[in-house]
């Protein structure tokens, strides 16, 4: 086939570009992913019974601040990464900021507590449930976000996959926070932070396969 013929064929009867801007597609997917994660949490686990007590609310807000911070930064990155060449305009440092903040707070909280409490503070009551729930809840939100990015044209598939995984993990942890009754900063840092990092690594590994165009 001659390239001239291809160009001629592509140019006949073209229509104006009326597809949604890439950014809006990503944000719609983010909203859908959040709804899906909340739905799975409500059906599968249920909201914690003591939600209305002051201590529970404070820790819920803290967990939400951590996860919403992650999702917020990562979503802005994803709208850039979804366009060709967008990877030039992202750096991983601000995406790591929420993690640095929670680790710092966890360290302070451990430092203030007697060492005999450390084991309980880090492991909590339900570390296994947390370790399994966040990645499992993240699966469908991850698929939703990947489907949205596939409509665009990312040129760094590893980094785009990683950020998609980061958002999915963050959205999932956000929903799980409504169920989780382990209220300690070290627990949030290790089990929330750790599982979200796992989701990010899984996204980086799957990105090149899922996003190729």
């Amino acid at each position, binding site marked *: *086939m*001659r390239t001239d013929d291809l160009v001629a064929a592509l*140019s006949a009867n073209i229509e104006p570009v009326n597809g949604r801007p890439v950014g809006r597609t990503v944000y719609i997917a983010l909203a859908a992913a959040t709804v899906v994660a909340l739905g799975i949490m409500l059906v599968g686990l249920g909201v914690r019974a003591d939600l209305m007590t002051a201590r529970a609310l404070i820790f819920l807000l803290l967990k939400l601040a951590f996860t919403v911070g992650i999702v917020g930064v990562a979503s802005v990155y994803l709208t850039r990464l979804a366009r060709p060449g967008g990877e030039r305009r992202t750096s991983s440092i601000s995406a790591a900021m929420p993690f640095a903040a929670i680790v710092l707070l966890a360290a302070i909280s451990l430092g203030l507590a007697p060492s005999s409490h450390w084991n309980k503070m880090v492991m909590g009551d339900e570390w296994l449930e947390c370790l399994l729930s966040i990645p499992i809840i993240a699966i469908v939100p991850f698929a939703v976000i990947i489907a949205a990015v596939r409509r665009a044209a990312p040129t760094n598939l590893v980094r785009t996959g990683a950020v998609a995984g980061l958002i999915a993990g963050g959205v999932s942890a956000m929903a799980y926070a409504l169920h989780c009754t382990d209220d300690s900063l070290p627990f949030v840092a290790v089990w929330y932070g750790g599982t979200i990092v796992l989701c990010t690594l899984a996204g980086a590994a799957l990105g090149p396969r899922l996003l190729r*165009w």
Partner: protein
Amino acid sequence: MMTHEVELKALMLASRDGDAASHRALLNQLSSRLRAYYKGKLARVGRSAEEAEDLVQEAVLAIHFKRHTYDPAEPLTPWVHAIARYKLIDFLRRNRASFADVPIEEADEIMAYDDNVDAESTYDVKRLMERLPKNMRCSIEAVKLDGLSIVEAAERCGISESGVKVNIHRGLKALAALIAKETRT
């Protein structure tokens, strides 16, 4: 360099508004620059001019189908360059060549040279077309290859005018997918 950017961006903006002549001019100009770019890169890893032409066409298809990802607030050159480089690395990875040899070049290198030598790619589009469903094939042949209007094409294929448009749109996507699959095997 600046004139290229300004001129090409103006064509891109017009093409986004649905101006077919601008779209054609844009793809023509970009394809000659892509040809120079890919020939240079592939010659360095011992690949043929036909393969360079395959890449030119893949990049042209990508620019066409992904043009909604171009942000008019940004310059056009880095966007085209990112697509060209992505398709090059994808090709080299697919063909197990070393892509460590591909230097990270200045974004405007792609606009630096023209190559208008006409070359044929290895894709046999007629053969690939045969694999498309009947209405898609008929619509594409009528409008894109024989130059009929939408009304005439609808008459020839025995479907509605909007049917012709939908079939062309879907058919070209399917064709691009077939070409991509062809290069992967």
